[in-house]
C-alpha cells in the first residue's frame, strides 16, 4: 500500500503502537486480524496523505536498492525477463495511479486474500463501496496491463 519497504516498516511500527494504545477498545468478539488490518490500513492511508500534501513522489520499483517491487526470478528467458520488466513497470505506474482507497482495497483483496466483507470492515465502509473500489482498481490495472499480457481478445 505504501509502495516502499521503508515506509511499510514505519507503518507496521506505527500500527503496533496504535494497537497497543487502543487495545482496551478491541472488541473481543471481533477478529483480531481484521482489527489489526484496519489499524494498519489507516496508518498507511495517513502516511500516503501526508506524502501527497508534501508533494512526495513515491519511489518506483527501480529504486537504488531494488527492494520495492520484486519479481520472482525462476531463471526467465530473455524475452520473458523483458516482458516481466515491462509488466512490472506498467504495474508500478498503474498502482501509483490508483486512489488510496482503490489501492488499499486491491492489495487487501489480491495480495492478502481478504473477502469484500472483511475489506469493508478494514476500510470502514459499506461492502458495496469496498467492492467497487476493487472493481475500479482491477479495471485500471487491466487497462494498463492488458495490451502487453493479453494483447489478443
Amino acid at each position, binding site marked *: 500500500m505504501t509502495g516502499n*519497504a521503508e515506509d511499510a*516498516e514505519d507503518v*507496521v*511500527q506505527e500500527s*503496533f*503502537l496504535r*494497537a*497497543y*494504545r487502543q*487495545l*482496551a477498545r478491541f472488541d*473481543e468478539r471481533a*477478529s*483480531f*486480524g481484521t*482489527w*489489526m488490518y484496519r489499524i494498519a490500513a489507516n496508518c498507511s492511508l495517513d502516511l500516503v496523505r501526508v506524502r501527497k500534501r508534501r508533494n512526495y513522489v513515491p519511489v518506483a520499483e527501480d529504486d537504488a536498492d531494488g*527492494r*520495492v*517491487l*520484486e*519479481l*520472482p526470478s525462476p531463471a526467465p528467458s530473455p524475452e520473458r525477463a523483458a516482458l*516481466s520488466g515491462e*509488466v*512490472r513497470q506498467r*504495474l*508500478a505506474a498503474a*498502482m501509483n495511479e490508483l486512489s488510496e482507497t482503490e489501492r488499499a482495497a486491491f492489495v487487501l*483483496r*489480491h*495480495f492478502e486474500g481478504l*473477502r*469484500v466483507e472483511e475489506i469493508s470492515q478494514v476500510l470502514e465502509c459499506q461492502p458495496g463501496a469496498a*467492492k467497487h473500489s*476493487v*472493481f475500479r482498481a*482491477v*479495471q485500471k*490495472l*487491466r487497462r494498463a*496491463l*492488458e495490451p502487453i*499480457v*493479453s494483447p489478443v*481478445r
Partner: protein
Amino acid sequence: MNHWNEEQLILYYYGEDDAAPDAAAHLQDCGECRQAYRSLERVLEAAGQLAVPEPAEDFDERLWARIESRLPARRGGFTMAPVWQWAAAAAVLLAALVAGRFGPLPKPARPTAAADPQAAERVLRLAVSDYLDRSQMVLTEVANANPHQPLDISFEQERAEDLVAESRLYRQTALRTGDTAVAGLLDDLDRVMLEIAHAPARLTPAELESLRGTLDSEGILFKIRVLGADVRAEQAAAAQSSGAERKS
C-alpha cells in the same frame, strides 16, 4: 445468451460469495465470456508478480525493539485494580507458590505477605511476566517453524501442558482482582496451549498451518508482548521508586 460484465468476472475470479453460482458452466458454454475471463486472469496473474519483499530475518526483533522504546509507561500498570486487591491476591499467590501448590486457592490471605503488600504485588507481577515469557517461547517455536516441513512438537507439548496447569492460579488471581485483561489473555493462551498439547506430536505442514492460523487469529503473540512490556515497565518503575525510598 447474456454475456457477463467485467464485475461478474472479477467476483468469480476472486471466489466471492456473490459471484454467479453457475459461473463454471457458463464459462464452459460461452466462448466470448471465456475469452474475456482468460484475459482478466492473465492480467491479475501478472499483477500477482508484484511480490512483496520478505522482511529480513531480524525484522521482528528489530521492530519490537523500536516499538518497546516508544511504549508509554502506564502507571498503575496493566491492571486497573486497586493496589490492595493485587496485594491480597498476591498474598494468596505467594502462599501457594511457597507451598508449591497450584490447586484451588485457599481463602484466607497470609498476614505475613499482606504486611508488605507492595512486595507481594511485585512477586505476582514477576510470576505473570515469567509465565508470559515462557508461553511466548513455546508459541514462537511454532510460529517460526518451517511451514513446508513436518515439525516435532513433543517438547513444546510438554511445556504447553505445564503452562496450562500453571495458568489457572494466575487466572484466578486476575479474576479476583478484577483484572479482566490479564484473565482474558490467560484464557486465550489456555485455548492455544491446549490445542498444542492435544495436537499430534509430529505435525504435518497442513496441521502446522492450521495451528499457526489459530495463533494469527487470536493475535496471541502480540497480546503477550504488550502485557509483558507493561509488566517490565512496572517492575522497572517499582525498582526505581524502592531504590529512591532506600536512599531517602
